[in-house]
């Protein structure tokens, strides 16, 4: 039915199957829309936040999603600035995933503010001392850059590309893409950092506060570093999941392995810096404020914030994936590669959780106790809403756009797709409408 829109030569699942998938995800989307309506019309009393927990699931989701979307800027940086040419085969997908991560983050921020209609005040009445101001400016600008990087991909759709203007526009945008990649990298270094600065500058919250250089606390650099390390892991993970769902290989192993290797070394150096930071904070910073290290990890009911969380973040989800990814064997073995990228993604999400929620959970006044929090269904649904939107949009993009330059080479149209035939013989792939043309040159 929609074969005229599908890139030349590649195979996609039947339309009914695609619509079934989109319909299932749309169920989650609609659930999120219902919660969104409640939040917008009834206010933030629909959440389980309170005066002790002003920041909660949404802010965590923002920080985590942006860290995971870091694959876009770092892959772009490696491809265009450092010159890792092999990464041209995955940079499109990294940009695509990053774009929807940033759209999700901005959407969640829209729910999170008490007076959404005043959201523009952050630009109009900007306080230059606030890390959130820096986040808002850089994040918005970077979403603009990601949009510019995404547009040429849309223009490569088979039907759109037939229009000479769009064809030429796409070509010319590719020519100058390095400029935008550099701009994106610059902006990302700052907004990833300023997100780290959000807890780092809270000098009256000893768990989050860190010393630093000039106006930047150490968390500024740690957040950028961890996003550069774990963002590409998320890109690899989503690529692998897409390959599993499409039941075919989309990116060559050497490309994945190169990105995994760089990620591994970034993760290894990040986790070393994180350990040094933690030790300094535990031995010097916290005691200077009157706290021992264990004050932050004990005396809370159910040990929600026990020492386990630090071990999980640094040890299990930091050292282990770094050790796997920096070894040749670890990267080449599919099981360990999967394990490493999943752990790295969980690790960076755990770090963001700790740096948002644990900061607020710990009592600072001696006569107060721990504050624990569990999100309401409205918070969960509105957090899943942009995720569902992202899944739908990525699915549509994958179906109709030549996102993976190596797809044709890895899956020649005349070769039978054995895995599909074996797994689900009843699902016949739709034949390409037009005879196979020359594969499109790889474009980023």
């Amino acid at each position, binding site marked *: 039915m929609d074969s005229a829109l599908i890139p030349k030569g590649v195979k996609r699942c039947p339309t009914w199957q695609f619509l079934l998938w989109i319909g299932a995800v749309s169920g989650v989307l609609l659930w999120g829309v219902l919660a969104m309506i409640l939040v917008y019309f009834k206010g933030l009393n629909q959440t389980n936040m309170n005066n002790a927990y002003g920041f909660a699931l949404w802010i965590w989701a923002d920080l985590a999603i942006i860290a995971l979307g870091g694959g876009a800027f770092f892959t772009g940086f490696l491809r265009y600035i450092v010159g890792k040419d092999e990464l041209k085969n995955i940079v499109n997908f990294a940009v695509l995933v990053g774009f929807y991560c940033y759209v999700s983050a901005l959407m969640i921020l829209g729910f999170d*503010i008490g*007076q959404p209609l005043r959201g523009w005040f952050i630009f109009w*009445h900007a306080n230059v001392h606030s890390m959130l101001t820096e986040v808002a400016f850089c994040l918005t600008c970077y979403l603009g850059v990601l949009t510019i990087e995404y547009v040429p991909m849309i223009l490569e759709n088979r039907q759109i590309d037939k229009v000479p203007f769009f064809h030429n526009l796409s070509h010319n945008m590719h020519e100058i893409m390095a400029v935008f990649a550099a701009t994106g990298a610059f902006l990302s270094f700052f907004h990833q950092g300023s997100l780290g600065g959000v807890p780092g500058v809270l000098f009256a919250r000893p768990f989050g506060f860190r010393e630093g250089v000039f106006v930047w606390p150490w968390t500024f650099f740690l957040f950028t570093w961890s996003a550069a390390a774990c963002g590409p892991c998320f890109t690899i993970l989503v690529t692998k999941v897409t390959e599993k769902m499409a039941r075919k290989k989309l990116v060559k192993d050497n490309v994945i392995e190169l990105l995994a290797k760089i990620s591994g070394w970034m993760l290894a150096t990040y986790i070393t810096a994180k350990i040094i930071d933690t030790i300094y904070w535990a031995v010097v910073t916290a005691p200077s*404020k*009157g706290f021992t290290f264990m004050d932050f990890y004990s005396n809370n009911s159910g040990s929600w914030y026990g020492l386990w969380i630090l071990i999980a973040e640094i040890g299990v989800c930091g050292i282990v994936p770094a050790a796997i990814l920096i070894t040749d064997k670890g990267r080449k073995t599919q099981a360990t590669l999967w394990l490493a990228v999943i752990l790295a993604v969980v690790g960076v999400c755990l770090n963001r959780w700790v740096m948002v929620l644990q*900061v607020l959970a710990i009592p*600072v*006044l*001696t006569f107060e106790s721990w504050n624990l929090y569990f999100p309401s269904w409205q918070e969960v649904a509105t957090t899943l809403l942009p995720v569902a939107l992202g899944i739908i949009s990525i699915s549509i993009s994958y179906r109709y756009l030549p996102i993976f330059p190596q797809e044709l080479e890895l899956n020649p149209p005349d070769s039978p797709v054995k895995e599909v035939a074996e797994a689900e013989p009843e699902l016949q792939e739709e034949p390409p409408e037009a005879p196979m043309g020359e594969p499109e040159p790889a474009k980023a």
Partner: protein
Amino acid sequence: MKVENAKKFGMVIDLDKCTGCGTCMVACMAENNVPFREDDTDKLLSVAWMRVYRLSNGKAFPDTEECFFPRPCQHCEGSHGHSPCVSVCPATATDYDMETGIVSQIYTRCFGCRYCMAACPYHVRQFNWWDPVWPDGMEKSLNPNVSVRMRGVVEKCSFCIHRYQLAKEKAYMEGRRELEENEYQTACTQACPAGAITFGDLNNPNHAVHQIAQPDNRHGGRPKNPMAFRLLERLGVNTKVYYLSSREWVRRAGDNYIEKEGKVKHA
């Protein structure tokens, strides 16, 4: 920014005198049009600019001692006016006034990001989770000098700054530039039946707050009075609310100490 003849309004609360009656809380709510709900039992969702905590020394009878601890906004100066909440607000909706030392909140500019709440260790900043609903007829008795706040914005104690503005206007009309000590007093100060709260200009040696707390401005305003202390002094927030107590355990409850310093946990 250095302001000539700047005032630094502050408060001294004598914890030995506080009976925990809660009059300060009621007076504050009435004066500042603080909203309340029919069921206001969840104190993490309710709004109270002044809150009275109940502290215990944690000892069994007959050594049990208690202390009621009123907590308004501490109006932190931080370093050069960079109080924890003011420096983080992305929309400049809260401000440190160098002329008065008061941390203000601009309700119509706040868009409810709640970063200031995350920054404040005292929980003095509270969010309007609901629109205010006044019992029938009560809207007629609201204070016309204080704007009511809508859902979705943060609010906090202002040291009754509207009273300062009114007093300044009155003095201006009378051809005076300076206020007498008793011309600007907060609602809680005037309402306290035990006289536990004293308010005035910490920079003015003639004011009672200066004489009681004896702030040492060369050391971030630390009190020279050995009976006086400030909440969470070690964080460097440089607050303008001083507490007095003759009891050692109460003074120690004002800050965190690590084991070797003899940290005391309070109920």
